């Protein structure tokens, strides 16, 4: 029954089966050699396997004996593929000979039209259904002040694109259903229709303008123009990326981050801080792989990279910026929901905010995780008080001097 479907043609079906089969076998004899050879090879393999086992037992230290079982499996695979191929061709030839074709009376256009209806409408339904089904796995509500606006923009765009996705597809499927060759027997000559073209132009321009205005506004002011409100606390921290981990630096009592230079990196000084700068001496380098942020404070994160491009991705805060070697990038956010509150809201007691790297940085790129903790100002201060300053007076400063001179800059 699959003969026609599998590529048989009308001209071939006139041939007599036997002579054709002989000719076919003649042409394909190399395949039988392969098949026969494979079978023989499998027999030899089976016989040899027993011998190999003996040998393997004799020379126990040579554990890496030839993998006869693996070879046998490969042969089985090859034989299976061969059998499938030959069966496929044989069915085709038999159908050509008998001339029976169950699909001969199928109406190509009608069958394909119905398939479009089934697959198309079913697909739209499936898309809609699974959008809601997977909603619990989407990122939870934005945990930052600007993130809420970004989510609002996202919902606004969805409320335009999802209906458009369905409506335009329905238009497409309607055309197939209504105008397939079978329902209609002639097309209407139509070069254009000016009103329709104008309507399309306006229909697409309105959302484009609306989205552009909303997008540019949110990008310019709430995202990049963040300023502290009256009485709002501000915090500046630095996050440094390297293959394949994050390091975070907090300012000390002076509230300012000190100078650094990449040539000073080495030994204990993992961030290359310049300890001749008093502002750097009190900077804190938490030992734990965690970032702590105070809730409702304006946090400025300075982002840099020690080696290759990385990207600071805080999905829950809708915050994202590349870590570029040699360039000081910064990003601002106001965390609005503490970790505890978020755990309660989501009903997940083990929930944590996470920092991920989102710009390919090498083999272990997928594993650059850091936990982010958002807590009250008091908890934050308490945690900060436990951290040790980066400056270790015992460290000989001559070492870094030596490194500088070695570079012959």
């Amino acid at each position, binding site marked *: 029954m699959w003969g026609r479907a*599998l*590529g048989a*043609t009308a001209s071939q079906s006139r041939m007599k089966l036997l002579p054709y089969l002989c000719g076919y076998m003649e042409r394909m004899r190399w395949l039988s050699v392969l098949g026969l050879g494979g079978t023989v090879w499998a027999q030899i393999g089976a016989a040899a396997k027993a011998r190999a086992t003996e040998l393997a037992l004799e020379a126990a230290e040579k554990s890496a004996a030839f993998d006869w079982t693996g070879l046998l499996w490969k042969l089985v695979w090859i034989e299976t593929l061969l059998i499938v191929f030959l069966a496929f061709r044989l069915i085709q030839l038999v159908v050509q000979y008998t001339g029976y074709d169950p*699909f001969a009376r199928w109406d*190509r256009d009608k069958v*394909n*039209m119905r398939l*479009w209806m089934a697959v*198309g409408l079913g697909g739209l339904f499936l898309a809609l259904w699974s959008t809601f089904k*997977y909603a619990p*796995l*989407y*990122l939870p509500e934005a945990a930052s002040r600007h993130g809420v*606006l*970004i989510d609002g*923009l*996202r919902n606004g*765009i969805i409320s335009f694109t999802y209906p458009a996705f369905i409506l335009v*597809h329905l238009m497409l499927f309607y055309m197939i259903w209504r*105008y397939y*060759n079978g329902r*209609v*027997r002639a*097309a*209407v*000559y139509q070069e254009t*229709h000016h009103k329709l*073209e104008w309507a399309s*132009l306006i229909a*697409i321009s309105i959302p484009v303008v609306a989205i*552009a205005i909303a*997008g*540019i506004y949110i*990008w310019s002011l709430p995202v990049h123009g963040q300023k502290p409100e009256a009485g709002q606390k501000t915090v500046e921290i630095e996050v440094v990326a390297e*293959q394949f981990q994050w390091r975070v630096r907090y300012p000390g009592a002076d509230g300012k981050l000190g100078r650094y230079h*990449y040539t000073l990196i080495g030994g204990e000084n993992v961030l290359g801080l310049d300890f001749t700068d008093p502002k750097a001496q009190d900077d804190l380098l938490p030992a734990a792989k965690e970032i702590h942020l105070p809730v409702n404070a304006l946090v400025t994160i300075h*982002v840099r990279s*020690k*080696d*290759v*491009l990385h*990207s600071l*991705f805080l*999905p829950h805060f809708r915050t*994202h910026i*590349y870590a*570029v*070697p*040699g*360039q000081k990038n910064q990003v601002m956010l106001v965390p609005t929901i503490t970790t505890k509150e978020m755990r309660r809201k989501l009903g997940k007691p083990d929930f*944590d905010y*996470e920092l*991920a790297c*989102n*710009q390919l940085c*090498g*083999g*272990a790129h*997928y594993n650059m995780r850091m936990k982010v903790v958002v807590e009250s100002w008091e908890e934050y201060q308490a945690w900060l008080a436990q951290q040790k300053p980066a400056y270790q007076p015992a460290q000989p400063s001559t070492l870094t001097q030596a490194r500088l001179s070695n*570079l012959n800059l």
Partner: protein
Amino acid sequence: MATHAMEGTHAHVHEGHGHDHAHKETFWTKYIFSQDHKTIAKQFLLTGFTAGFIGILLSAIFRLQLAFPDKSFPFLETILGKWAPEGRLDPNFYMALVTMHGTILVFWLLTGGLSGTFANLLIPLQIGARDMASPFLNMLSFHFFFWGTVVLFASFFVETGPAAAGWTVYPPLSALPQAMPGSGLGMILWIVALVLFVVGVLMGGLNYITTVLNMRTQGMSLFRMPLVVWALFTVAVLGLLSFPPAVAAFILLLFDHSLGTSFYLSDIYIAGQALPQQGGNVLLYLHLFWFLGHPEVYIVLLPALGITSELITAHARKPIFGYRIMVLSILGIAFVSFIVWAHHIFVSGMNPLLGSIFTATTLLVAIPSAMKIFNYIFTLWKGRIHLTTPMLFAIGTVSFFISGGLTGFFLGVAPLDIPLHNTYFVVGHFHLVMGVSAVFAMFGGTYHWFPRLWGRMMNERLGYIHFWLTFIGANLVFFPMYYMGFGGVPRRYYAFTEFSFTSQWQNLNVFITVAALITIAAQFIFIYNFFHSMFWGKPAPRNPWKATTLEWSSPVKHLHGNWPGKLPVVHRWPYDYSKPGAPADFIPQYISDEDIARGVRWWEEDFEPLTVIDRAEPEEGEKQAASPEPKPAPAFSPNAKPEEGSSPS
């Protein structure tokens, strides 16, 4: 007129060559160093498809890893050796697979394969030229492409593996061999391959532009060209303007990689050592690369949409809706594509003001793109839709373009790009809108023009099975990626096990992988159909789809120079389908109103177009005297009106 003089020379050359078979063709001159545009089209098609299938098979391997990160697949060790110790894919090699998958599919299949095949086949045949303006350059174009392919695949056999920094090869990762193994020799080979590839593309592009501008046959004004020629012509211009900056970027990258310069490198401490390079910046590379990278999207997409225009009109038996708007859309998309590149790097730390500007320009692209989609749907409206294999693939292209294009609204807006940048939302978006959408157009074009390429029909029923499996499969693979994108799942992750917000998507990843494997398996139906039909397919009639364009007027059996006698003269636009009062539901471009009045029966199976063509073109001596356009008869005048001044000279 220069055009006519050239036609004259070509006709002369042709009579010396192909017609009389005066010179011997060896295997080498016929199949390898061919200067015939049809053979070069076949070479591009076979090379592109071969590379493309390998690229798709690579995705099968990394999809397995994503779905089953904890399972061991011993067969992987068999085929990959040290890159999959104990059947577990090496993370660095995972990145290499992803990189090569992207490079092969974007550049080799969808740029070289798609444009190379259809520009070479269609431009001369559809505008009525004997061959490309420079057949020799055309041959060189393929050979650069081919050797680029060889170099690219050779990089798989380098000890440190192929390039692995992503298909965008961002430095410093790609510039520092100590950053990852793939940035060693593999990276150099990648750059060499890309430079060879671009040289090939540029040679081809120069030819396409020259041919379209100078070698159109008599009566073929610019606004009588089929939309696919418009698209291929525009794409050639796009490539000419955008590929050179990318080559510059790659060469500078090579300098940084191997010669110790610091165009992109600065302040780097890696592998326990501070590098001396200072003052460079990666952002320079990002801008240079995406100055190519974004037009590249349209270099892929516009030919696909052009092919779709041809397929939809020919199989719906209806003129394209809004021809001039379609042409304007192509030109509009091409122009806008040059001023949107920075939307790929909204969060790179560039000046936020640029983000606002590029948001506005990016959203502009939606207007011509949507106009094209609406026009495709309105073309189907009141048509007579034959749901043949090419038509199915054309409708599939439109559907994918809708599904993928609408999500561009999310990614093109700078603030929304913050949570979605580099997530699976992006992966789903570009695979649908320019990946499978363009691949479907390429499949559709192959089914449609296969009779023109090999003189045989492809099997229709295998085509249906292939289409439905691929259409359903591709949707099941890429649509769920949008959901993962809303979950913030980053792309280019070797495993999603390390983060709690990514590991919850494991089940969906298994689903996507299963769908992907089935879809990939379905492509073997196409491979079988392709090669089986090439040798044993049903012999094709001259005009199997009853289409109007010129390529269906030249003989089925290929000959050097395309038309044995004179070149066809064009009397009408390319979309005279179902014209009221006409005796058939299509009027080929070479049929004049006099021919209709005279009772030429072009719709019959055994109609010989050359009987019309040979009469239509004036003789060599008459050319100066003959009027450039035959006068149209009033009954069929709407599109047969002569367009004065638009014919080049």
